């Protein structure tokens, strides 16, 4: 199992940025972690890694925010949704199987409609400090096993 520890929100975003630099068309990243874990912070890093300058804000209320950088970036948050059918109705498949990169916050709430092949990332608080986190990526499918290996290489090189 891969595990990355960070000790500040900026470092957490930094891991996201490294991932953003590696993402390709059609990639799906699913974030899980409790309120305040740093999912949106991580997503801001991913956006930066995709070359997006616009401020990336939480999509909790707006549900889906779209940005255009090196690739289109679809930032989805399903916190407010109760039924996977609602997400289907939002046209999530068009994002998952479209021409950009999709990142879903609170993805485990909608487990049954996520693509089988994807990169799951759990962000957990740890006791070392208020902003310390452990980031646990779990790849599903060959593409994401390769992606995770590339990410771990970049993260280790950075350290």
């Amino acid at each position, binding site marked *: 199992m891969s595990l990355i520890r960070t000790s500040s929100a900026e470092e957490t975003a930094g891991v996201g940025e490294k991932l953003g630099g590696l993402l390709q068309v059609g990639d799906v990243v699913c974030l899980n972690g409790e309120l305040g874990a740093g999912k949106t912070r991580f997503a801001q890093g991913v956006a930066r890694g995709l070359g997006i300058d616009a401020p990336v804000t939480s999509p909790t209320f707006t549900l889906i925010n779209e940005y255009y950088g090196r690739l289109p970036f679809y930032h989805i948050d399903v916190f407010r949704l109760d039924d996977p059918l609602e997400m289907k109705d*939002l046209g999530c498949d068009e994002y998952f199987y479209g021409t950009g990169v999709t990142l879903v916050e609170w993805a485990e709430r909608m487990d049954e409609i996520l693509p089988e092949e994807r990169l799951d990332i759990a962000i957990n608080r740890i006791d070392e400090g208020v902003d310390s986190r452990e980031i646990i990526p779990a790849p599903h499918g060959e593409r994401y096993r390769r992606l995770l290996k590339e990410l771990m290489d970049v993260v280790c090189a950075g350290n």
Partner: protein
Amino acid sequence: MSVIVLALETSCDETSAAVIADGSKILSNIISSQVDVHCKFGGVVPEVASRKHLELLNLVVDEALAEAGMGFKDLDAVAVTYGPGLVGALLVGVSAAKAYAYGLDVPLIGVNHLEGHIYANFLEHPGLSFPFLCLVVSGGHTDLVLADKHGSYRVIGKTRDDAAGEAFDKVARTMGLGYPGGPLIDRLALSGDPSAIKLPKAYLEKGSLDFSFSGLKSAVINHLHRAAQRGKEVDKADLAAGFQKAVVDVLIDKTLEAARETGVSTILLAGGVAANARLRADLAKRAGDESLRVMIPPLVLCTDNAAMIACTAYYKYLRGAFAPLTLNAVPDLKLGEDRYEGNFRGTLSRCKV
């Protein structure tokens, strides 16, 4: 002779249609969550879905026309929110509005959702004069906007992470208060001491008019975690009061700072968080101390509704800012820009101005 505008709003959760005359007379303003559509529709209506808009739109439009005592032939223009928002949801409204405008041979007017929130103020005060500052605070947005004339805006401050309304909801949920969080915290805070629990206020770098509420949300969560670890009870009223004050103080401090910097003497409030009692009272008092004028629309016009879209459209109608029938939904539409595809070349036989 009056100018009658029908407007549609389907950018997020609400399906809404409104008919207004001359930019300020609301003949109807139907919002799906406020009418018993479940009964009329005769089935389960999902809370959030493009399909919901599709199923409700005709009902809502029919009801808006009926309540206004108008028929399609009475309309002078059809307006629609075309961004920002969910592409699937926006497309429902945009497609319907295009069909109506084409079928009726009246101008089509594309409206920015955030511009609509600002114009909720013109429904109450048609004589409102420029320039003004508008603080748009809702679940999805926190923007400080400087407007110098109709259609001309500059966003001089915005949230870098969570919107203010979102912070209220998430903090309420963490505290186990329920949903919607804004009114619950507002009420609980009345019996709390806002200075009992120290919470951070994010002013960001010097001179910045941007906002950040994510750190405050985390501070509340950390406070609850620490108390739980030590087995201590948290005074929820104090926490609610402290949190609310931290949000409201920053919103007002930055708004007043912007007023001083720009020399603007009128401040408008817009968006759902404008319902917060502490924000209304403190802003009115502190702006009053600096001889600034404050305007706050009634609550029904603060949350998403089509009357504010119709009002915005009226002023676009007056200056002939029509959209082509190729208008498309623009999910990332920015305030102050019009992103139409091509130029409108149709004949405007029924245009009165």
